[in-house]
């Protein structure tokens, strides 16, 4: 008994590719698809894995990151999965990868035309916390009725003085669909706007695929008098000295010792002396 190339059978891959094509044609719109059970648990990247499995070819070079790092356990596990089932070359270098599967980050290095970034998405519906009913939220998208989200942002600002969504900050795609950027830090949101690479989003448990084609407008939701203002720890990276990268805070002792280092390990290694 052997498994198909990249695990999924060919009919399933075709079905997923059709969903991806539809998603690319309607930027930001969530396309339902017949997600399969994968040999990794739901919530651990099954959507992203199915998207990657459907687009990956033998000549592709795959990079997998989780929290920005190539060597976090789940990234290791997914990279191994594709090395085993598709026999593809893998890399940790953003510049060398043709497909980058990610959880919670966008690499610091600007992605290039021809590259594809595949996001793992836990909750594809940006309105789910405000309207948990799928039947209702589908209607709100059809009507482009995003008042609920505007009111939530307004209430955040009225109460806290700033938007309280530090990650998974909703974006408007191509001026039409409200979209969850997946739980990336708000710091990464601007990278999505007019990105030269194709952005694909897979949500396995929720069984949706969506996409942002290259060079598409992606605007983080905000107000004219309260423009979108992403946040970053106000430090340089302790290893490479970067002042413009997103940082992880590492607790070094139990008396308040902290060190801040790049979350994007490839970026940091390239810059480190």
């Amino acid at each position: 008994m052997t498994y198909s190339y990249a695990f999924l059978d060919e009919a399933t891959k075709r079905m997923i590719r059709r969903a991806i094509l539809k998603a690319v044609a309607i930027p930001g719109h969530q396309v339902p698809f017949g997600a399969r059970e994968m040999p990794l648990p739901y919530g651990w990247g099954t959507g992203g894995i199915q998207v990657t499995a459907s687009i990956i070819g033998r000549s592709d070079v795959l990079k997998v990151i989780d929290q920005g790092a190539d060597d976090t356990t789940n990234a290791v596990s997914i990279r191994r999965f594709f090395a085993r089932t598709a026999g593809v070359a893998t890399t940790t270098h953003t510049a060398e990868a043709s497909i980058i599967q990610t959880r919670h980050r966008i690499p610091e290095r600007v992605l290039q035309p021809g590259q594809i970034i595949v996001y793992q998405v836990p909750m594809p519906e940006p309105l789910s916390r405000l309207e948990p009913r799928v039947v209702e939220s589908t209607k709100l998208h059809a009507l482009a009725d995003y008042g609920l989200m505007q009111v939530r942002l307004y209430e955040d600002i009225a109460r806290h003085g700033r938007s309280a969504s530090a990650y998974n900050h909703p974006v408007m795609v191509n001026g039409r669909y409200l979209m969850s950027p997946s739980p990336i830090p708000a710091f990464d949101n601007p990278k999505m706007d007019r990105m030269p690479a194709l952005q694909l989003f897979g949500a396995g448990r929720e069984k949706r695929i969506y996409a942002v084609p290259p060079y598409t407008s992606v605007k983080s939701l905000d107000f004219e008098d309260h423009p979108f203002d992403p946040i970053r720890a106000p430090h340089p990276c302790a290893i490479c000295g970067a002042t413009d990268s997103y940082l992880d805070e590492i607790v070094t002792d139990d008396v308040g010792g902290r060190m801040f280092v790049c979350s994007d390990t490839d970026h940091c290694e390239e810059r480190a002396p």
Partner: protein
Amino acid sequence: MYVSVKGGEQAISNAHAWLAEARRGDAALPELSVEQVEQQLTLAVDRVMAEGACADRGLAALAVKQSRGDLIEAAFLLRAYRTTLPRFGGSLPLDTGAMRLQRRISATYKDLPGGQLLGPTFDYTHRLLEFSLAAAGEAPPPAPEMEPEEPGPPPRVTALLAQEGLMAAEPEGDDDTPPPDLTRDPLSCPASRALRLQVLARGDEGFLLGLGYSTQRGYGNNHPFVGEVRMGEASVEVVPPELGFAIDIGDITLTECQMVNQFKGSLTEPPQFTRGYGLVFGHNERKAMAMALVDRALRGAELGEDGGAPAQDEEFVLYHCDNVEATGFVEHLKLPHHVDFQSELENVRAMRAAQQ
């Protein structure tokens, strides 16, 4: 310090080696065989087949062994295997009325054609630990056998009620339209009853049990009686296109529950009884009965009943009863989330600074 979040590769290998060792337990004791699991932990195997949505006792038993007895993990293993299998086609509808019965009871009649058949049940056992089982002993003597009073399959209780016109008729199935397939197309609401039953049939036993129980305690009560619970073997028949007629490809063990529920009638319908339906692989009455209660609760809107209870809420029930999905998403919280948490941290610090 920074190294502590690195080195995932080696850590994963070591963890898996430890898992294998822990699974085996004390190597001085004989290893549990898959056949032993299949024969002696039959109800665990049945549950894994039902929630794993794959009627294969051998594979389900292997999954139970591999998962160290974690039945949700076992159902997940079976599902992940099942999804790779080619799909040849559908069977004809199973004729559960013609099942070769091991058990059949009705709570609505003292006696009825075909009789009450208790079968291998825990009912009426006293739940006292049998310390004699702790020591290996002889196989028990075979249970006495009895001839059925009447030959042939006993009639269904719901059919007896239907003769009197007291049982609401189920809408006729449409043979030309294939039933929806949850394993190929994503769930969408509002769901047809066929789709709802598919979801419930592989739904988590515990979740459905809790929901069914909640209807009995007043959260969407539907006045249930067990019209009939039956367990036995049903034939699976398929019509291969090259033959054009049905052939029997084997038997599967099923548990079916038909719940009979009071219905006061509406403007267009006279007072009558309605049905909640449960069907599950293997021997699992708890699941079949809970499923029937929840099925009936989900029909509330169709029957014009006041809704609002959790068990009557289709989206709530159907999107949350799959334990493979639920366990994945709940347990994914243990994956690293430090990037998001960092953002929250800086945000809270900024908000506190602004307040002071």
